[in-house]
């Protein structure tokens, strides 16, 4: 009896979340603000979500050094060491996707934020614990993008 009730509750919970869940392969957000400033919001939001920033890849600088001019193009690498350790031990093939990466791409005075949705990896693995981890990363990444959008919107509104 109890098991049946919990199954019904589980189904209801899943249904109530269906509107939120999106299994797009990448998560994106556009901010009406220059990339150099948005980058600072991104770094703050990542840290507020409990991740450490491993490093910042200056793709535009690299391209410029080799004679290929580019607008601001940065990639922020971030993660939690305990998660990286667990994944590299249990699913070594997934280290390619760690640390997590978020691209900050200038489009003139606007900024495009893009990140691979970890749930794009979900169809390749049946393991429930990994599915939970991928879902958690997805939620965190979406939350980081949402927070940046909210924080910058306040600043944009104050500017106008």
């Amino acid at each position: 009896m109890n098991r049946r009730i919990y199954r019904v509750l589980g189904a209801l919970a899943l249904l109530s979340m269906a509107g939120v869940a999106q299994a797009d392969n990448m998560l994106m957000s556009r901010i009406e603000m220059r990339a150099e400033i948005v980058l600072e919001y991104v770094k703050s939001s990542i840290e507020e979500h409990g991740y450490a920033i491993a490093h910042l890849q200056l793709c535009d600088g690299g391209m410029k050094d080799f004679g290929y001019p580019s607008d601001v193009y940065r990639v922020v690498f971030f993660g939690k060491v305990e998660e990286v350790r667990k994944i590299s031990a249990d699913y070594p093939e997934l280290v390619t996707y760690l640390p997590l990466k978020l691209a900050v791409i200038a489009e003139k005075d606007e900024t495009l934020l893009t990140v691979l949705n970890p749930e794009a990896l979900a169809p390749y693995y049946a393991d429930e614990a990994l599915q939970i981890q991928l879902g958690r990363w997805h939620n965190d990444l979406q939350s980081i993008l949402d927070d940046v959008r909210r924080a910058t919107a306040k600043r944009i509104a104050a500017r106008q």
Partner: protein
Amino acid sequence: MHVIRVLFVAGLLLTLLLADAAAAPDGEALYVEHCAACHRLGGQGGIGLPLEAGKLANVSDDYLRKTVRVGRPGRVMPGFQRLSDAQVDAVVAFLRTQTATVERTFAEAPVPGDAARGEAVYVEHCQRCHGADGSGEGEGTGVTMSRERSFLVMPASISNRGFLASASDQMIRRSIVVGRKGSGMPAFGSGKLTDREIDDVVAYVRAFEIQAVEPEPLDADQRPTHVYESPYDFETTVENVKLALTGANFRIFPDRLLEQGLIDEFSVNTRQIGVRFCNFNVLYGMLKIEPRLGIVLPCRITIMEQPDGQVILVVPNLRVISRWFNNDELVGLWDRMEESFIEIIEEVTL
């Protein structure tokens, strides 16, 4: 007591569900969430084509709804299958409000043109921008922003399965007659082309539908990464990888340990290293085609010593990754690049 608690939770969830179903979808919020990243908040276009009044005044709501649903296979725009009909309607209504346009309706009747005759007209007037196969000339999609491209607004792929499934003959006809303001597409009406020539071009464009080939699906056994065992020790494997990459004309960045930056330098695992590499010339060309590539950059081969001493190499599977971008140009390039990756690994593990 337990049953009451369970019923209370069930009631709460049901209330949430019903409230969600009853609330009218917010088209603006949906647009910001799903469309603005590519089309920009004001619809000026970015990675995606512009959604401005000049275009929207000449398309039907049915075309917009179908476009949202089926997207443009292989041209970045995904099909939003998960949105409800009400949500799609709300996005379309928001686009109408934002552009101050009203729907233009079209007759269902096909245009009675002759595709064979239309070919000559297409070659003379359309091919320069839309390409011989209708896929749109030039690299990339959308509007030139931070990357140099041959066109300010990339000509639309009019042979795309999603476009042809969404656009009626009469709508295509009108696009040819009135052009697309702001996109570089001229108007061919008012005597520039005769009615018969326009009908013939429509028939020629419609014929792309027959030629449209679905890309071959990946083999079911393809995984997001390749894992290879190295016959060598950790240091030798790392050295071999660098030598092979240099030989393949890649520039190698300083080594980075997998955990580097995530923990203090004394606690970091030094037997997990990422050899990162890039060919800037190739990268620059690829970014024109797919500006979002940064999320999988730089290229990296990870070398790890397992607890049993076995050294493994973890290499991204470019065939799988490229398909996540819904960008056929990228898929073609990366399928070829994948072969060179495999050659490098074979050299390393020989």
